[in-house]
């Protein structure tokens, strides 16, 4: 089953899973956006501008940081190679574009983030499926009976762990009664996602290690968790005092 899935969505076809998740996630977010006082059109505009910023920003900033390579072949700027891309810079640009677009449409930040939560939860499912298809984000070797054969070893099926966690979190997102206080819905989703990341990263075989063998992604996820918990409590206090 896994082998068939991996053959069907072998790279670069694994990107289809991400695009499908984006499309489904946006449709689900639109369906619920009115609950957060965000119109479908406003949410659509915000997401499409952000996607545009993501694609353009990722390529432009990659070209800038590898300027000499592009100077010798400027037409590569328009190449269809998806690898000529800086995903972190792309995310930063998408975020900035989203902020600008949201403020021009006079959208409330917390309500917008709440409206985007189903999209984030669906993208997480798509990401775990694309990891499974590409064999990336793989686990460390194990002799547990549910280990999967990947990259010439029996490994923790970390992509499947990730998929289960994403599905459970999505289930919570979809069936949870929306908190009336703007921002709490999004922050609770982020808390769950950060907890899952801290826990599951421990089984990864490709972690970036820092001092004392600590896993960088776990440390970052824990910091996100701490910030989100603090923000959530602060937000509740502000709303209460209002």
């Amino acid at each position, binding site marked *: 089953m896994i082998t068939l899935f991996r053959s069907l969505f072998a*790279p670069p076809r694994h990107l289809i899973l991400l695009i499908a998740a984006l499309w489904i996630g946006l449709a689900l977010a639109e369906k619920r956006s009115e609950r957060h006082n965000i119109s479908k059109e406003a949410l659509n505009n915000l997401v499409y501008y952000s996607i545009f910023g993501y694609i353009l920003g990722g390529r432009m900033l990659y070209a800038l940081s*590898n300027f000499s390579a592009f100077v010798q072949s400027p*037409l590569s700027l328009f190449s269809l190679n998806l690898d000529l891309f800086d995903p972190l810079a792309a995310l930063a640009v998408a975020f900035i574009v989203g902020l600008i677009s949201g403020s021009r449409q006079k959208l409330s930040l917390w309500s917008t983030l709440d409206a985007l939560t189903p999209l984030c939860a669906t993208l997480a499912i798509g990401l775990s499926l694309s990891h499974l298809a590409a064999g990336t984000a*793989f686990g460390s070797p194990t002799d547990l009976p549910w280990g999967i054969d990947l990259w*010439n070893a029996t490994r923790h099926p970390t992509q499947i762990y990730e998929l289960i966690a994403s599905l459970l979190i999505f289930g919570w997102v979809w069936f949870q009664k929306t908190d009336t206080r703007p921002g709490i819905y999004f922050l609770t989703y982020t808390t769950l996602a950060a907890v899952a990341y801290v*826990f599951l990263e421990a089984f990864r075989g490709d972690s970036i*290690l820092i001092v004392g063998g*600590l896993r960088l992604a776990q440390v970052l996820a824990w910091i996100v968790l701490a910030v989100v*918990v603090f923000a959530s409590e602060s937000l509740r206090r502000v709303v209460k005092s209002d």
Partner: protein
Amino acid sequence: MQQTQRRIIYVILLTLGFAWIFVSADRSGASTSGKIPAPQQGFLAPDFKLKTPEGETVRLSDLRGQAVLVNLWATWCPPCRAEMQSIEKVYKEYKDRGFTVLAVNMTYQDDALAVMPFVQEQGLSFPILLDGAGEMGNAYQLRSLPSSYFIRRDGIINEVVIGGPMSEALLRTRIEDILE
């Protein structure tokens, strides 16, 4: 949920998370890099020994110390054909700095007689290897053509690029990385 209950849950979550980070730390240097050969970024590139059309044998592990681009291709594959000129250009540009290309034709899925005319027509000067039995294709778990593996001087795969054609800028940035 009461405020006190919620705060207790948050403190427990943060404390358990903090402890878990230390418990699950990988003090052995856990990354699988360099230990198991596998066709994936961070692993030792699986070794292979193949012949050129002229009958000369080339083994990947003999090139340790050089940065290597292993490119899997076939004559019937349009993106493979399209990227050959870019590969040739960067090969000439970087070969004096310790970079080489092994262009492995997937002969078991190709027409062996079409290989040399194509190479001559394109004027390719880097080594062309023939995988007649599909052993190399299997070892690299080939799923799409072209597939390119950028291998560092220590034999570790730095990046895998599936699909093509690769642009010159992509080739240059990846080659600079593996030459470091």
